[in-house]
């Protein structure tokens, strides 16, 4: 029997709204079981909690990560494929007091715009990049990206990525963390409630690094794409942790404030 409330119950406190205040509508066109809306909500919640609403600018790339740009109450710019870090550089240099962040998928950041993010990181631009990594080009049908890990199933390779045929994935967070101008790099995942809480902590730290102007920050958030992985929606988190999560690992890769 369904005992869920239909109206706010009397003598209660609301612990969570449906989405967040910065979401104008909760309806979105993303697939069932997609991890992107969860990651997006985490980022919007951190913007609210750090009082950055009204003085933040988001630069979005192309792909599923930009599906919800029409319903966010944040200043936004939709950039060309993979060029979001370059656009964000310009915004940040003109408006240095704003919190400038990019939101990109792995197809956008790693396959299409690898040069942009590496150069931006090396120049130590004071921006924060968010990589929503699901290992597939979800928007264009679920084919393999340069970040798909070995053995991971995609629409174009149903038996999994093979090193002898497709080569090896580009570990973008590791690459960026090895550059000197980078202040903060972390990898989180939205596979369960604990992972989402950890992701939120990393996102908050990344914004704090940017506001303290210590350098470039990148947070990679692993998200589910059951459509691209041809798996059941309910099996998405487990499959993600078997492939992407296990091969790349979660945690902070670089934290210049903690080290100093």
């Amino acid at each position, binding site marked *: 029997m369904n005992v*869920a409330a239909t109206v706010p119950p*009397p003598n*209660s406190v609301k612990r969570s709204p449906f989405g967040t205040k910065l979401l104008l509508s909760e309806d979105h066109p993303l697939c069932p079981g997609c991890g992107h*809306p969860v990651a997006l909500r985490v980022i919007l919640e951190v913007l609210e909690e750090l009082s950055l609403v009204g003085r933040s600018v988001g630069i979005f790339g192309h792909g599923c990560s930009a599906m919800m740009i029409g319903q966010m109450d944040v200043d936004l710019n939709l950039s060309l494929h993979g060029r979001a870090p370059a656009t964000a550089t310009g915004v940040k240099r003109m408006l240095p007091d704003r919190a400038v962040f990019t939101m990109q998928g792995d197809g956008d950041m790693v396959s299409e715009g690898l040069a942009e993010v590496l150069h931006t990181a090396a120049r130590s631009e004071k921006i924060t990049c968010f990589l929503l990594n699901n290992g597939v080009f979800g928007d264009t049908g679920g084919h393999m990206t340069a970040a798909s890990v070995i053995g991971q199933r995609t629409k174009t390779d149903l038996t999994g990525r093979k090193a002898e045929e497709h080569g090896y994935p580009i570990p973008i967070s590791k690459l960026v963390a090895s550059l000197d101008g980078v202040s903060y790099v972390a990898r989180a995942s939205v596979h369960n409630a604990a992972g989402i*809480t950890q992701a939120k902590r990393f996102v908050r730290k990344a914004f704090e690094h940017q506001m303290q102007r210590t350098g470039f920050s990148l947070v990679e958030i692993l998200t589910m794409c059951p459509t691209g992985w041809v798996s059941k929606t309910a099996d*998405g988190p487990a499959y993600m942790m078997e492939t992407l999560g296990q091969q790349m690992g979660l945690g902070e890769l670089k934290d210049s404030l903690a080290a100093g």
Partner: protein
Amino acid sequence: MSNPVQSGGTVIIAQDRCKGCELCIPACPPRVLSMSTEKNALGYYFPELAEGCTGCTACHLVCPDYVFEVYRLLPPQPSQSQTSAVQ
């Protein structure tokens, strides 16, 4: 004050928006969510709540479709028990 609270929390489920991914079912610590037997307007099964919700917000955290609004029920106050329904 000694009145036991039936359950610590409850949720409002926006079932018309649910896309039936079932991520909330294993995420719920007290295991009080289960999928419905009928479909919503979009053609998906949606979660239903059984007794025993603690208001922990785990379902809200994992839901990609923003279906859950979570409430923590407060213990009834003896002086306000007459008027609490008005609120």
